[in-house]
């Protein structure tokens, strides 16, 4: 069980020459992720979802100040433990395609990822991971700039899965993909969860997250507003407890396409 408990995050910045000011980015972020679960974190861009992912793997910039606690299987997940688990138990699928090294062939990058994760036969593991995402033969050997956006996303997915980590944090893994590829990526994440891994799916796309997620946490302005089972998102959202989550649900084109009035949703004001 991966637990985030009342996580808060500030960035320290110099105002003028001497005065340092803390800029708050996250406050009161709490959620839990179990093995075998696909947990979607849904919120608008700039809400701090990616920062939460970076905090989980312990790769925040040096001027970040973290409060609250992270626990993995009951034990505190501090910087030392994060460094030891990174890649091996905790894997990240980054949001940006620029995370691929443009000067290295894809299958080498996957092999490196497997080796860094401490796999015994990294080349075979990489081959397997690439086959799992449907990249075989020539397309797996290309340089990143020769890949389409969808292929590059799948290379990133292969890099995260080549190491057999039990906890996967997928940061917008389907952004910019056409419907067929998006469904492919989401289904693969679902399969990984069914195979016993804990998958945290960070996305701004509630509709597609609902098609695969077990539970959904709604994220807004650095705070987790509520966590609800995916089944709670139906009808007019009566089962949801926060106004913001309900508004988010009702704003989907399939539902009312309702644009909430500001007084209805206090969090928007």
């Amino acid at each position, binding site marked *: 069980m991966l637990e985030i408990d009342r996580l808060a995050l500030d960035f320290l910045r110099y105002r003028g020459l001497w005065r340092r000011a803390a800029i708050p980015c996250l406050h009161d972020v709490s959620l839990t992720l179990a093995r075998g679960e696909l947990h979607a974190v849904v919120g608008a861009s700039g809400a701090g979802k990616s920062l939460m992912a970076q905090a989980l*793997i312990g*790769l925040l910039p040096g001027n970040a100040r973290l409060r609250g606690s992270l626990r993995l299987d009951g034990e505190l997940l501090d910087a030392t433990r994060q460094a030891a688990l*990174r*890649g*091996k138990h905790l*894997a*990240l699928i*980054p949001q*940006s395609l*620029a*995370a*691929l*090294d*443009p*000067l*290295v062939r894809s299958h080498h990058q996957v092999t*490196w*990822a497997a080796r*860094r*994760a*401490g796999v015994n036969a990294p080349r075979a593991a990489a081959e397997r991971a690439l086959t799992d995402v449907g990249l075989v033969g020539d397309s797996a050997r290309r*340089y990143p*700039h*020769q890949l389409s956006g969808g292929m590059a996303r799948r290379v990133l997915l292969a*890099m995260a899965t080549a*190491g057999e980590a039990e906890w996967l944090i997928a940061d917008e893994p389907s952004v910019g993909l056409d419907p067929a590829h998006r469904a492919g990526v989401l289904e693969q994440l679902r399969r990984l969860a069914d195979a016993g891994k804990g998958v945290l799916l960070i996305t701004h796309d509630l509709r597609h997250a609902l098609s695969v997620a077990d539970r959904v946490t709604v994220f807004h302005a650095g705070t987790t507003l509520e966590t609800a089972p995916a089944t709670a998102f139906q009808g007019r959202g009566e089962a949801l407890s926060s106004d913001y989550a309900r508004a988010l649900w009702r704003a989907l084109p399939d539902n009312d396409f309702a644009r909430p009035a500001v007084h209805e949703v206090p969090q928007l004001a």
Partner: protein
Amino acid sequence: MAVRLIAPLARRLLRLIAVLGVVALAAFGLMQASPIDPVDAYLGPQAAQVSPEQRALIAERWGADQPAAQQFLHWLGNMLRGELGWSRVYNAPVSEVIGSRFLASLPLLASAWLGAMLIGFALGVVAGTREGGWVDRWICRYAYTLASTPTFWLAILGLLLFSVTLGWTPVCCAGPAGVTRAELSLATRLHHLLLPALTLALLGVAQITLHTRARMLELMRSDVALHALAQGASRREVAWRHGARHACLPALTLAFASLGELFGGSMLVEQVFSYPGLGRATVEAGLRSDVPLLLAIALFTALFVSVGNALADGLYRLVDPRLGEVRP
């Protein structure tokens, strides 16, 4: 396919010919503007014993009495026939002088160039990996100091310290006095080469270090580095596996683009150490108005630097696959 390969090559060749033409013209113009009279410089102290008639005879024999344009065209015609002329300073064919002098300079240039590239690159990668740490701060200080040091001053300092005070290295020349080059042992040659090469190398180090470091900083802050760290890589692994690959692009460009500076530096260093290479021949040719030799050296240097830059372009394509597909 053949056309696609040949067209850029032909374009490059045309550009090279244009560059060489301009270089020759500029060098010739400068020599014409030089206050040194070639006949006076040739005669040296004996000038006082030579009558104006004899002097005119020498000038006529050399063609120095003809208009400048005609002299230049004459030289150009000979050059196109492969005839580089006769060096007055060394009293030998120009091609021979350049050949032997370049061979003498080559070990100096090559070791200095390689040294500068390898040391500069390694320092840059190390500094860029530990941004803001004490290693980084000291490497930067060192590079800035070096970048603002004049070549000849560094050469004189080295000479004073290692040759005069400590006596570790010889004071001058490519070998002991009175010994022909064929008789020199390899160890003696290296011993004489050491200090000039090191001085020349140190000058190139600063630039390559600073540019490599800048590229490394950029990479270490990029998504590539963050992703690699997330996979469990150490900072050192990220630096050498991803960083060095990226940082060798600017380092390569600089190393090849600085071939011209290397030549310039070698003139000063060879002058200070009395090393009988191409650099010293250039200085002699300039001071004694040896027009054919100086023009040939200018052309040779320009050719060398151009070929170096073309090589850099080719290597660039090998390292960065994205460039291979873009037509120049």
